[in-house]
């Protein structure tokens, strides 16, 4: 199997997980890596469970199938934990990052993660996004949390990419809100 690092995003339509996968891909390309970022579309309706994936590698990526054994799993909506198979296929040393106000220990039980090597991280991304962006958009705080919890990307690269690529598309207020959301995701993520 190819040695790509694989990421799976779980969310509901309109929570921005497809965009999150895209942002992560952009940052990795900017740092000279090969990436894939792709959504798994089902019925397109608001609130439906959505998955998005990343593959990140130092070599060109040839696999064009679904990601089945992701080491990194980001969950934008904790109500999906019981229904969306969020731990499916994950290895022993998986890293879970969950948008929740609960503690990491409690979340580990909810996820039913038994492996001591696995890392369960919690971040109240909904609260952060409401305070920084002004609406429920947990994707950018989750990216900040990913930067802290893993060495996949740096928080500076995330922020730089957002400022550079989205300043034309969004107002200064929205860009600054997202930058703050990334930073707070980085600062406030907790695990045990």
């Amino acid at each position: 199997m190819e040695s790509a690092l694989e990421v799976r995003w779980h969310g509901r339509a309109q929570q921005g997980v497809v965009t999150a996968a895209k942002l992560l891909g952009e940052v990795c390309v900017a740092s000279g890596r090969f990436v894939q970022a792709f959504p798994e579309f089902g019925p397109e309706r608001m609130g439906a469970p959505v998955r998005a994936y990343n593959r990140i590698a130092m070599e060109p990526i040839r696999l064009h199938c679904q990601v089945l054994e992701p080491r990194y799993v980001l969950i934008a909506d904790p109500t999906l934990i019981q229904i969306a198979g969020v731990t499916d296929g994950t290895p022993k040393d998986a890293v879970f990052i969950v948008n929740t106000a609960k503690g990491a220990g409690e979340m580990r039980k909810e996820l039913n993660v038994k492996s001591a090597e696995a890392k369960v991280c919690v971040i109240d991304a909904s609260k952060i996004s409401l305070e920084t962006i002004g609406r429920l958009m947990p994707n950018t705080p989750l990216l900040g949390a990913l930067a802290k919890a893993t060495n996949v990307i740096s928080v500076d690269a995330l922020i730089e990419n957002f400022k550079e690529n989205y300043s034309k598309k969004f107002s200064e207020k929205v860009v600054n809100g997202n930058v703050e959301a990334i930073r707070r995701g980085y600062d406030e993520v907790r695990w045990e």
Partner: protein
Amino acid sequence: MAITAIKGKTALTGNSAIAYGMKQINPDVCAAYPITPSTQIAEEFSSYVADGAVQTEYVTVESEHSAMSACIGASAAGARVMTATSSQGLALMWEMLYVASGMRLPIVMTNVNRALSAPINIHCDHSDSMGARDAGWIQLYSETVQEGYDNLFQAMRIAEDLRVRIPAMVCFDGFITSHAIENIELLSDEEVQGFVGEFKAVNPLLDVERPVTYGALSLQDTYMEFKYQQSQAISRAKEVVIEVGKEFGKRFGREYGLFETYKLDDADVAVVILNSAAGTTKVAIDELRGKGIKAGLLRPRLYRPFPAVELSNALKHVKAIACLDRADSMSGFGGPLFNDIRSAMYELEARPKIISRIYGLGGRDYKVRDAIAVFDELENVKKTGVVDELMKYITI
């Protein structure tokens, strides 16, 4: 999506890359009716038109039949014309596809491969473009976002070549390629313009000094000569595809041929497969090679015209071959790729065993383990010399 890099490495979805490539070509006319999963091509290209980034006349139409009709009118009038579609859209164009090729109009169309109804499905398979394989269009298939983008420019050169003058279709996989962000090296606008060259209209309807007619009635006395010339022209396209692929390589460092092979030279068993699934198959081949199994791959790039002799030569040493089709001919006798490849091999003295496997319909995932299972079957055919099932559905 925002494109910040003009030249150099960036990452785009297949659809964004095609829209951007069309912007770089700056065709005279684009008539399109957006359809999943090619929607973003029309959407993003129409933004380029609205922003004045191109001089293209963008014709909004009420159906794909009208889209192709408008493309035909514009092309016959003397314009460089491009469009894009998928699935039901291509199916609705059916009648006009034959008009475009019969009138020898060098229209370039991207077809983002998607299954056909019924039952309705928006995901990838090749039923749409396979159904159009006899419509007289050149068909180029693409494994990655990069190849789709590169094929777009080459398709234009091939279609417009005076030895050819045949419309061309660039195909890649719906969602898997159209909606996936992958690394891509973009060309500069100057490089694109230098490669595709200035458009020269041939026998344009709008040349009032030299009136011509298109699509006139042609009966028993002349119709067959038109078809003969068309047949000759699409056959000549093969040489032009090779020439253009070489020139592209010389200019930009990425050379393309009629097909791509992977570890085929010493292979005992091989898979023939189109588009993105070839990548997944290559990963399986590396795994099998690690276990001493001599597995290889051939991925056709040019499917119409069909380079039968070249394909047969490349595969003749292989003992057992599986042709994997992401479409079924519903003939009860294997997929379209299987039938073409198997027919091409008929002239050989010692023919490999060839089996048909239908995979991935309606977006069904094709995994590394699916490819490995096919190679396991081929190993068995190689050992026993016996084909148990000539045609079979896999990934089911």
